[in-house]
């Protein structure tokens, strides 16, 4: 019996907040398509209730037998814009209600896939879905939506970028908190287990299990032991630590997949923070040697962290996928919140950070009077970073209706709270209103 490694594992879970952030079951709804919307929704409900009936039970059992917290149980489905397109429904809110009902009855925390992929243009279902987003995400509590507006292969759909600026504003008008259920992507991935951006891609199998892990606290504690040593040691330490963290994801995914009789898809190597003390990505960056996240050097430290996480994690898993990187959501990371409140971190620096990590401007509250065009401008900038650099980027910002810089938006639980951050008020309106499509970038002459 190797008591030291047993103690280390127990400490990782009990003191360093190591947990499985989510077991996400991806379910294809392509076989639920029907020209009668009502029938389609009945098929969707039936399929969700059949495929995922044991998901929560199995996850709870794994949690109790192996002593690993599994924080969320989630479902992702085929983008509803594809599933609903064959029907003559005028809007798709009813589909969101069906998803919400099934999720509630199954006891899963979130269900993603109220989504559309419009990087190159709209099919009929895409327009209806996007128009339905504000009402759908307001009337439901567990449904998450996403829209992919750009890709490295097809460029950026500026019409969609413009539209999404107004959708975000409309969603925030009812309640800013609703905005945390909507992500606007470039280069969206098909097997992401993390919300709000999860959907089940059309290239995926009928039903798969994907796992997302969370362990910033473990990495931070490991780095505390190599204070002052060269950066190579930092990188090696992160690799070794994430190997262990990711092994747990692989292990849990294997067991869940066997117990549910569903193939195991991927482990997402992301380091996902929570608002709990000691579960912060920003604290890792500070442990590497920054006085505060946001200081010059932040982007470099984050690039190293992100790369080392992948190098350590890749060997630990059979298949890696999803977003796989360090997340930097402001509201979900206690140290990020502190840095923003203290004036050490601004949106421009966050934007630079998104060029080297997963995933984008995430869970950031902005003043309520920010215009739709400005939000579109922010989306366009993020999409450009993703499209040019061949990576996934996303925007999940929260216009805090009625609030200004210095106020706060409270999300509760895992989602934390976000201080309202200043946004450059020079208008990009004329650019955004040009519409059309930014062409796909050239893949040579990289400078």
């Amino acid at each position, binding site marked *: *019996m*190797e*008591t030291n*490694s*047993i*103690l*280390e*594992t*127990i400490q*990782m879970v009990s003191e360093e907040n190591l947990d499985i952030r989510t077991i996400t079951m991806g379910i294809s709804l392509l076989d639920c398509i029907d020209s009668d919307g009502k029938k389609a929704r009945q098929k969707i409900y039936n399929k969700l209730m059949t495929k995922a009936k044991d998901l929560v039970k199995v996850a709870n059992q794994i949690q*109790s*037998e*192996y*002593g*690993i917290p599994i924080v969320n149980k989630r479902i992702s489905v085929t983008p509803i814009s594809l599933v609903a397109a064959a029907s003559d429904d005028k809007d798709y809110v009813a589909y969101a209600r069906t998803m919400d009902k099934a999720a509630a009855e199954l006891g899963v925390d979130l269900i993603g896939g109220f989504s559309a992929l419009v990087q190159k243009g709209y099919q009929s279902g895409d327009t209806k879905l996007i128009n339905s987003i504000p009402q759908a995400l307001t009337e439901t509590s567990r449904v998450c939506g996403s829209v992919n507006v750009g890709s490295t292969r097809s460029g950026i759909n500026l019409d969609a970028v413009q539209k999404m600026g107004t959708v975000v504003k409309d969603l925030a008008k009812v309640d800013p908190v609703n905005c945390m259920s909507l992500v606007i992507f470039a280069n969206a991935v098909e097997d992401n287990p993390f919300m709000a951006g999860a959907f089940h891609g059309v290239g995926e199998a009928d039903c798969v299990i994907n796992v997302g892990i969370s362990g910033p606290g473990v990495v931070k504690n490991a780095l505390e032991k190599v204070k002052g040593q060269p950066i190579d040691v930092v990188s090696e330490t992160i690799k070794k630590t994430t190997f*262990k963290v990711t*092994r*747990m994801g*692989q*292990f849990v995914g294997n067991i869940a997949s066997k117990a549910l009789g569903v193939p195991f898809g991927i482990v997402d190597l992301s380091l996902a923070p929570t608002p709990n003390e000691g579960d912060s990505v920003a604290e890792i960056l500070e442990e590497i040697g920054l006085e505060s996240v946001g200081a010059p050097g932040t982007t470099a430290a984050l690039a190293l962290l992100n790369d080392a996480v992948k190098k350590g994690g890749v060997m630990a898993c059979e298949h890696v996928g999803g977003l796989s990187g360090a997340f930097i959501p402001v509201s979900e990371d206690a140290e990020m919140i502190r840095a923003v409140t203290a004036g050490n971190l601004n949106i421009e620096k966050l934007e630079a950070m998104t060029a080297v990590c997963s995933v984008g401007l995430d869970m950031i509250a902005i003043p309520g009077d920010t215009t739709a065009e400005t939000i579109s401008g922010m989306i366009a900038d993020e999409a450009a970073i993703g499209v040019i650099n061949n990576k996934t980027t996303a925007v999940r910002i929260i216009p805090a209706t009625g609030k200004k810089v210095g106020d706060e938006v409270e999300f509760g639980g895992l989602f934390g709270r976000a201080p309202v951050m200043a946004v450059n008020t020079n208008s990009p309106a004329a650019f955004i209103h040009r519409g059309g499509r930014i062409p796909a970038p050239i893949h040579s002459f990289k400078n």
Partner: protein
Amino acid sequence: MKAILTVLGHDQVGIVAKVSTRLAELNVNIIDISQTLMHDNFTMMMMVTWDDATKFEVVQNSLSDLSKTTGLNIRIQREEIFDAIQKL
């Protein structure tokens, strides 16, 4: 089924006796044991096995009852998780 049992708490008379008596009642076999005192904190680790016919939760619930009556922190986890994380 093979599992790792860890017991943490203030040192007191009869901890090993109480835990091992309960395990014997459950027909759980102890195959390895290690114990130490860290700053007056009693720390014990046991590797245990039992017949698969007895469900994990039966053993877990019984130990959790014991945990309540003794004030000790008793944790039981299936052994595979430790191998998965620590071994290649």
